């Protein structure tokens, strides 16, 4: 046995701690650097995306709230702009009274508070000063600024200067409380005319009519990256589908539809959950999943100016699996496939509302009927997806062609 010891010692001496170490090879460092870069970049993307997303969402909420507030306070500026026949889509509450008039075909009186507010901004005698309008007549008397001022002015008059407050208000208050109904009745004719007249002055504006639901069809195609846990070994998948966008208010619209989605991805074996006992554990698993993605998203229109618009949205997606198969990759060298090579899942499964969607859309209208859109998106899993029960996440960019269905009603 001492010979064995000698042998051991021989090798231990010579190769256990070599006097002359192997020569450095720069190519080895390059290979390692690639490994380090890959690890850092993918992790960075994953950490940064949610942060950017939430910051963007917060900013947009703030902006949206601010934009809404501008509308409600009803400053004089929108009124001035009305005179200039411009394309500004967002107008104050005065606009809304005009829309109410036009849609009903008759004058509706805003509540006393609104009227009082409008009076603040009107100049006396303004109505008769306006070009192009015959002074409306009530029971033979021309309407003065003090009469039902707010009703007409809200819909019609282009005032330039704010009203001095006291007298008309009290006049209105004292004399006109019951007048509004009379005003409505008597002014129906001329008010309607002027209301109609002003409509001509309005230019194409999204909010100008009373809000009617707008519908659009959106055909999309999207390449995306799919990964499990991180995007370190993401694979590229494809999606094609048809969505319907339905507006529910000026700023919000819902989109839903069907997208045929092909998602290949690579997962380490530790993420692969199944009850099957592998004789030898594979190193990783390549998955090939094809499914129908049914999203239901709520989108908020952040910004719209002439042909460009930008919106953000979130919602939930359901995946209905059409085909799932997994290929098992054994360790390097793999001359032996000691276990199953691949497995195709029989039947189909569905994962309802299991995926959270986050997206931002930029859309450009080509004409009244068609538009193009670019939509980067992220899909994050809320439940485990697929036969192997993984957290499959996706990010990509969808390109779309939009067809407005009720473009005829757009002014």
């Amino acid at each position, binding site marked *: 046995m001492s*010979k064995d010891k000698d042998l051991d010692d021989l090798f231990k*001496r*010579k190769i256990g*701690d070599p006097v002359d*170490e*192997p020569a450095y090879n720069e190519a080895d460092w390059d290979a390692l650097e690639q490994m*380090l870069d890959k690890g850092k970049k993918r992790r960075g993307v994953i950490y940064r995306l949610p942060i950017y997303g939430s910051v963007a969402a917060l900013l947009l909420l703030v902006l949206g709230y601010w934009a809404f507030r501008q509308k409600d306070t009803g400053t004089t500026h929108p009124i001035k702009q009305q005179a200039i026949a411009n394309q500004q889509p967002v107008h104050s509450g005065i606009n809304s009274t005009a829309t109410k008039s036009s849609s009903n075909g008759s004058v509706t009186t805003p509540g006393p508070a609104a009227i009082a507010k409008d009076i603040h901004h009107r100049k006396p005698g303004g109505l008769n000063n306006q070009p192009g309008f015959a002074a409306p007549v009530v029971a033979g008397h021309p309407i003065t600024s003090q009469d039902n001022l707010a009703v007409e002015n809200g819909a019609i008059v282009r005032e330039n200067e704010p009203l001095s407050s006291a007298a008309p208000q009290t006049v209105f208050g004292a004399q006109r409380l019951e007048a509004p109904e009379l005003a409505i009745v008597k002014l129906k004719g001329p008010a309607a005319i002027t209301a109609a007249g002003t409509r001509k002055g309005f230019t194409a504006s999204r909010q100008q009519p009373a809000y009617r639901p707008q519908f659009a069809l959106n055909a999309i195609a999207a390449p995306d990256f799919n990964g499990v846990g991180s995007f370190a070994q993401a694979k590229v998948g494809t999606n094609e589908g048809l969505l319907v966008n339905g507006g529910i208010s000026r700023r919000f619209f819902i989109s839903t539809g069907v997208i045929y989605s092909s998602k290949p991805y690579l997962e380490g074996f530790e993420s692969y959950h199944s009850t099957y006992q592998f004789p030898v554990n594979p190193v990783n698993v390549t998955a090939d999943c094809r499914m129908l993605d049914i999203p239901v998203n709520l989108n908020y229109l952040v910004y719209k100016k002439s042909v460009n618009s930008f919106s953000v949205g979130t919602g939930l997606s359901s995946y209905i699996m059409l085909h799932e198969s997994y290929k098992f990759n054994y360790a390097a060298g793999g001359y032996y496939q000691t276990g199953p090579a691949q497995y195709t899942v029989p039947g189909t499964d569905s994962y309802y509302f299991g995926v959270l969607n986050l997206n931002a859309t930029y859309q450009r209208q080509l004409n009244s009927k068609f538009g193009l859109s670019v939509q980067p998106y992220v899909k994050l899993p809320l439940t485990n997806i697929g036969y192997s029960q993984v957290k499959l996440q996706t990010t990509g960019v969808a390109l779309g062609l939009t067809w407005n269905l009720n473009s005829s009603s757009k002014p």
Partner: protein
Amino acid sequence: MGEEALHQLIRGCIKQDRKCQKMLYKAFYGFAMGICLRYAGNREEASEVMNQGFFKVFTHIEKYDTTRPFKAWLGKIMMNVSIDYYRANLKMAYTEDLDSAEHVSNGDLVDKNLNYEDLLKMVQRLPQAYRTVFNLFAIEGYSHEEIGEMLHISPGTSKSNLHKARQKLKQWVMEADAPAKTNTRYNDGMNYNPVVAINTVDINGLFLNKGIRE
């Protein structure tokens, strides 16, 4: 490398400073490669395994206990990565064992012409299972029980693998150590001498016959 310089490098690596990482890599390249070379079958395999080891080092460097010697920590990681690689390739681990060297004479191990390269090549020729056990027992100094735990084999298997490894290595050492005798392994006696001459030069240059003669 001095203690302080090393710790500075390590601090840089914790901050993921690429320059520091490269300097640390170059400083311990030889040591790490030396370990991986004796577990792997060839240089390419060893490079790959070593890089995996360094990747672990750089991603877990904040866990390194600065009161312990860094070289030992690094060496342990390299060994573990090598063992992982072996276990991932288990099916192939015995396939190269085509011939069995059962009865090798226990002559003197006169190894005067055997340098690092020769012996390393012999170890790399071993089937991976024997090679790993031989490394762990003869060079690292683990017991068969410990080896059994690390490789998920029984101590009996470890002993058997070690024995087979020793048999083969002995045979090859004997064969390589008989240059002057009529050696049918070499085609042409004339060609052999120049090789010896070169070898001698190498040995003198590198080893100065250090430790070759007892």
